[in-house]
């Protein structure tokens, strides 16, 4: 499996660290209610189909990226820098 790092190009999956769903980009305000924080920290969907995940190019440029892929076909559909992504 290879992921398209927007900075380095297509690289082997072993260079990346997997974090989880891109939900983590949407950090609630400090005073948001408990439900919002619970959803942010703990609750994730498990979709059959397209999903957006966070990966860290740990053994590469150090960029956090948002990868869109399909959990059914395993297709990797694209990636953007987390720095520029809004989910």
């Amino acid at each position, binding site marked *: 499996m290879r992921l398209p790092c927007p900075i380095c190009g297509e690289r082997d999956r072993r260079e990346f660290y997997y*974090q989880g769903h891109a939900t983590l980009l949407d*950090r609630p305000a*400090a*005073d948001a209610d*408990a439900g919002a*924080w619970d959803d*942010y920290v703990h609750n994730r969907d498990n979709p059959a189909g397209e999903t957006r995940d966070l990966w860290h190019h740990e053994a590469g440029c150090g*960029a956090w990226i948002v990868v869109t892929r399909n959990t059914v076909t395993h297709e990797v559909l694209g990636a953007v*820098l*987390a720095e520029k992504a809004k989910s």
Partner: protein
Amino acid sequence: MRVAGKGLNPNGAPVSFTFDGTSYTGREGDTLSAALLANGVRLMGRSFKYHRPRGVLTAGSEEPNALVTVGQGARQDPNIRATTQTLYDGLAARSQNAWPSLKYDAMAVNDLASPFLTAGFYYKTFMWPKAFWEKLYEPIIRHAAGLGALSGDAVEETYEKAFAFCDVLVIGAGPAGIMAALTAAQSGADVILVDEDTQMGGRLLAETAEIDGQSGPDWVAAQLGALAKMDNVRLMTRTTVTGAYDQGTFGALEQVSEQNAPLNTPRECFWRITAKRSILCAGALERPIAFPNNDRPGIMLASAVRAYLNRWGVAAGSAVTVFANNDDAHRTALDLIGAGVTVAAVIDSREDAQSLGDYPLFSGAQVIATKGRLGLKSITVQDARGTHEIETDCLAISGGWNPSVHLTCHMNGRPTWSDDILSFVPTDNSIPDMTVAGAARGNFSTLGCLEDGISVAKATVTSLDLKSPQIATPAAEDDPYSIQALWQVDGTGRKWLDFQNDVHVKDVKLAAQENFRSVEHMKRYTTQGMATDQGKNSNVVALAVLADATGRGIPETGTTTFRPPYVPVSIAAMGAGSQGHGFAPERHLTSHNASVDRNAPMVEVGLWYRASYFPKPSETTWLEACNREVNVVRNHVGVCDVSTLGKIDIQGADAAEFLDFVYCNTFSSLKENRVRYGLMLREDGHVMDDGTTARLGLNHYVMTTTTAAAGQIMKHLDWVRQALRPDLDVRFASVTEQWAQFAVAGPKSRELLNSILDEQIDNESWPFMACGDVGVAGVQGRLFRISFSGEHAYEIAVPARYGASLFGLLTTQAEAMEGGLYGLEALNVLRIEKGFITHAEIHGRVTAFDIGFDRMVSQKKDCIGNTMSRRGGLLDAEREQMIGLKPVENEHKLTAGAHLFVEGADAVSENDQGYVTSVCHSPTLGHDIGMGFLKDGPNRYGERVMLVDHVRNNHVLCEVCHPVFFDPEGGLARG
């Protein structure tokens, strides 16, 4: 028997080898199985379950029977297929699964007991009583049934891994693969052509058919010559594509050398090949027919008989018979007669079969029995006229051909049944960007393969926006494939399907009868197709038998799933480069050599190696050395390498704001040239890590992390900056390895430093928690007045290239003032005496509240973990909170990992009050001390609790106390 003048290498040099201790001579270019057949050896192994005598069935990697062991000790290689083992001078091969010998195998009694050892036997018989399984049944079964054994020694040989990339990967170099590669290469595409054999050409090396008026092997050699001249083509022989994976990734195993290669020469290389397109030209495999006792040595596939004859010049018998349901019967007979080998009979199950040459033909006939325990002696043939016994030492069989669809199934593809060829063909688009050509999709004539290779490659290069070249199709035979269904023959005796796992027709019928009718259930109930050959020869026949037994058609019955790897892959090849230091490299400190010179035991801390203690000649235990080192620090001065701590250099106009966001306490208020302790939380409110961060300038900080969390924190900072706070102007870099850093601790620490610093320091210029640049013998370094021991202490850092020299200087100076080095053990005692936490305490489940630091979590700002840390459950007084522990009796020993109970309560989990995280013997206090967590701990100082360690059987009555045992006011560090 060798046939003079036949084979691709008729004048090859003699090669001597042994099999089960007997010496033989083969010929250069032979496989082990070819050389054994050339010497008249037909018995090559014993079967897995019944220990039936078995000979070689095939001439390729699908071989189920002829498995041998090669080599001794660490170089012992079991389950080598004799059909793929290249012969070399001195090769010593041994048979497997036979005792005391291949001819007189004692365990062959299993064969007599076979009526009791039917399918599902293990499940039915050995299930009860349960305890008997482990103690009795399993060892007996394991002893009786088996393949070759590993030596148990670590592998000594070299294995490699490698990566390759191409536009077009062509898998298989028979007629279809060669034409596909030529076509793709002429379009300008980067092409890799792989083939599992030592020589490319596929069936063209084993058949007598001509192409463009040339012999098959000559035509192959000419095409390979043309391919080899092209810069955009890579030819890989002895490389088996073992799996097809996502995004055009393929695993491939290359056999690089034989067992006699020097140890530094790779034996195998595991490739990961990435291809934009792939063309599967894997050919087809012949299948047997199930007739009674069809497994005797000397019975083999017709295609193998032709391969041994045409490629290696070996006649598999002196009076050969052929039994088939297709034209392979006649092709085989003609090849043998052409080479002067006697053909005793051709048995063709088709009523309308016509003789094509001078051989006795039995049409509409079947083989119903065979004789010859250790080697075939005769067969019984039945036709309309009656039965006929024919003497023969080799029976060539063909039940038809199965396209090698395996790789197309590796991503959940299911093959499609074809009534034309009575087998499965690949389903289109089973693997993205892969097309199948030639016999692998049921195109069985030579011309059909050549044409298919060209047309598939043209379509492939067109899809890559390359120009499709003009290429002529060579002239070749285009005989129709004529086959009539014949899966099994009636008659008494076992009709073997899966030769390697000893599954016969009755087993499959029994599975159906006991309602294991699904093909996947039948497979597991009978073990059909579950051996190392994955049932390459047998699965389709077994399916046909199951379909028949359940009254369904074969397409409805379906197939089992082929999974990677296509052939067995040694773990050594898959894990190449990942053993020893390849698995865990060693990180050495600049003080490493000096520490080793002083006989310090070096202990692993992650990948780092740190000195545990520095023993004196008079000391006999680690504890003596540790106690001395603690006393040296408390009374004089100690030096310790602390460079393993993570160091992150942080700069930028918003560096302070960034730190305020990642630490739960505040750093924007920290003055320049000052250090502050910081606590980091995870977003869920639990403690992530701690450390000190120094402000070297207005917009310049250097953060330290714990050794264990250095990588994790770097990743976390990257995350926060890029994903959560891209608005901040801040950059950082790990500088852990750029700086060597040493703790200098003890009452004489300033005195020691003043002996080496370019400018003197005092309490005014360097108060507690001060930091800044200093000169050390002309080198610019950094000095931090921080203490992890509670003593008046510093950490001094210099660029790593000066580390070894500074360590030597500090050691000399310290020893001149009754001080010395201290290691990790003493460091740990010093910090426990002072109640400082490490990851033993902040183990992932504790909060700032639990360690008494909840007031550090700023109320005035947002930061990572702030909101979630205020959840009620994380601030509950009943939570286990950090405490100190000391034994009520001074001489009692504490143990870490023990649990705490109210005195007198049963030591069971319901009564659990807490646990112990760190313990040590304190030479300063003269007894053991510990740190741990206890429910409502801070309100229970003075209370007695029972420490219970069920693992070490330790019960100690302890007093709960404040976790800071030494200098609780902190005056020493400030003084």
